[in-house]
């Protein structure tokens, strides 16, 4: 991108120089010192050629002080000697002069290389050289219009330098961001295709349960990390690492729609997996109605308790958590396991079920339904209006 800016500048330099040559030919009769004008035009041509060659061979050199200063000096000389080369009082006539456009290339080049401040300062400097040139030319700055005209030149040069420097800075920052994003994507894709697949194979084929669990944990963390890089995960997924006990790393992503509830349920699923070695899948619909913090706390607390109960009392290997919107604008959540189950009539409700699940849901205005049979697992259904 920087290269295309420099290419544009090179084209501008050539255009400006051809314009200068044309002006020189047209206004040759007004020249008092034609040899000086020719020498200056040749110096500008030399800079134009050298910069063009540099662009092809070593573009970075164009951003170094040497070439930038050389161009500014030749530009300043052009402006200054303008008044000398032409006859007296040329400065305020309507006819064109040598150094009107080409020196701008130096200001722009300096601004691209060293930023808006440098551009503005060199613009003011060349503008002041223009004032000096007018004085050398012997033209009297005796009217408000003439003062205004010179001020105009100074301001125009300074603004051109400042604006170019600013835009070049913006472009450079954007380019850095783009290439950083591209690098991240590349890393994510490589990890996704390679490491994640390998971890999955290890997890599946390991005969050692500790190794399998380690692979699963790593896979889960890597996946959360990758989806965080990709800029937002889907609403589904199993198990978010619990931010608290993993070096304080905040949960990487929260699925859209699932919001805090999705993150809290995935954290509960991860706790179950860590504690009991089974597997818990969490699926939170994307189109849930907006939930208040109390509602999220009640649902996440109750469902989290149900997930832990599945491991603690049911010795379940597999837990499924599902959340969806109901037709009447509420939320439905189910926690189902493949554990031992129990007889709800014969078994008195324990503290966990009574307080942590029913209590929480009733306080939030919701209700609870429990289905269980010995040998057929347990399902806890929660509704919030």
């Amino acid at each position, binding site marked *: 991108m920087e290269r295309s800016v420099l290419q544009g500048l090179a084209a501008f330099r050539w255009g400006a120089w051809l314009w200068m040559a044309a002006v020189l030919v047209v206004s040759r009769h007004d020249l008092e010192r034609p040899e000086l004008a020719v020498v200056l035009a040749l110096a500008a041509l030399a800079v134009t050629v050298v910069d063009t060659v540099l662009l092809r061979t070593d573009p970075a050199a164009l951003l170094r002080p040497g070439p930038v200063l050389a161009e500014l000096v030749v530009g300043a000389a052009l402006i200054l000697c303008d008044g000398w080369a032409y006859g007296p009082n040329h400065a305020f006539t309507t006819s064109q002069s040598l150094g009107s456009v080409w020196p701008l290339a130096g200001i722009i080049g300096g601004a691209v290389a060293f930023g808006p401040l440098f551009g503005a300062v060199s613009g003011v400097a060349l503008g002041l050289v223009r004032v000096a040139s007018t004085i050398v030319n012997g033209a009297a700055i005796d009217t408000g219009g003439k003062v205004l005209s010179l001020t105009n030149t100074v301001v125009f040069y300074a603004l051109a330098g400042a604006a170019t420097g600013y835009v070049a800075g913006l472009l450079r920052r954007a380019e850095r961001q783009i290439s950083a994003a591209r690098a991240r994507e590349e890393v994510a894709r490589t990890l*996704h*295709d390679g490491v*994640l*697949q*390998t971890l*999955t*194979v290890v*997890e*599946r*084929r390991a005969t050692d349960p500790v190794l399998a669990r380690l692979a*699963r944990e790593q*896979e889960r963390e890597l*996946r959360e990390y990758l*989806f965080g890089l990709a800029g937002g*995960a*889907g*609403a*589904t*997924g*199993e198990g978010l690492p619990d931010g608290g006990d993993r070096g304080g790393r905040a949960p990487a992503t929260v699925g859209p729609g699932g919001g805090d509830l999705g993150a809290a349920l995935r954290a509960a699923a991860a706790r179950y997996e860590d504690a009991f070695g089974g597997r818990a*899948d969490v*699926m939170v*619909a*994307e*189109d849930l109605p907006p939930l208040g913090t109390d509602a999220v706390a009640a649902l996440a607390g109750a469902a989290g308790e149900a997930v832990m109960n599945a491991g603690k009392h049911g010795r379940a290997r*597999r*837990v*499924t958590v*599902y959340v*969806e*919107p109901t037709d009447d604008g509420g939320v439905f959540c*189910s926690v*189902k*396991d493949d554990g031992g189950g129990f007889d709800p009539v014969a078994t008195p409700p324990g503290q966990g079920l009574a307080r942590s699940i029913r209590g929480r849901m009733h306080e939030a205005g919701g209700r609870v339904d429990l289905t269980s049979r010995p040998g*057929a697992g347990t*399902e806890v259904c929660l509704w919030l209006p």
Partner: protein
Amino acid sequence: MASVKVVLADDHPIWRDGVRADLGENFWVVAEAGTADEAIAAIRTHHPDLVVCDLNMPAGGGIKVARTCGEETRIVMLTVSEQERDLLDAVAAGAVGYLVKSTPGPELRDALWRAAHGEPVFSPTLAGLLLGEFRRMARSTGAQPLSDREREVLQFVARGHTYKEIGAALFIADKTVENHVRNILGKLHLSRKQELIRYALEHGID
């Protein structure tokens, strides 16, 4: 027991080795493929009963395979992560289901065996994704694409119930549950096709 002819498609040889080892003697791997095009060629040559296909492969991936061969054979997608949006597209393109790659060996074998015999392989997560998709359709068209019974069945699957458990809860046969699931898949294919046609008409594409 008759063995099932399988084409394995995955761009990672390590994964194909793993699956082949897990499949055991009831499956006969007739060909392996590393890209979508290789898989399509292998399907055309061997006419397998079942294709086990990675969702993410170079040059088109599983979706291309499902779109091209979904009507000729049964395709089960394998995916690393259920978070992938492409999953729904793959199923809409003609896959009969999908399995996450971390599925333990015996469970994988069992699911693929059932898929080869025509049972849609539905995980709770896929059912949940589908329910969301049908809710979206209902909102945009104002009409409910699923019957009440189909919605009920799909919700049971999303909650983690097996076909057997669903049959028992609804007092219907397992096979009826399976048929409902197949019809639901059919409706997804159909609505996707209609959506494409509507899109084409609206944008003046012939």
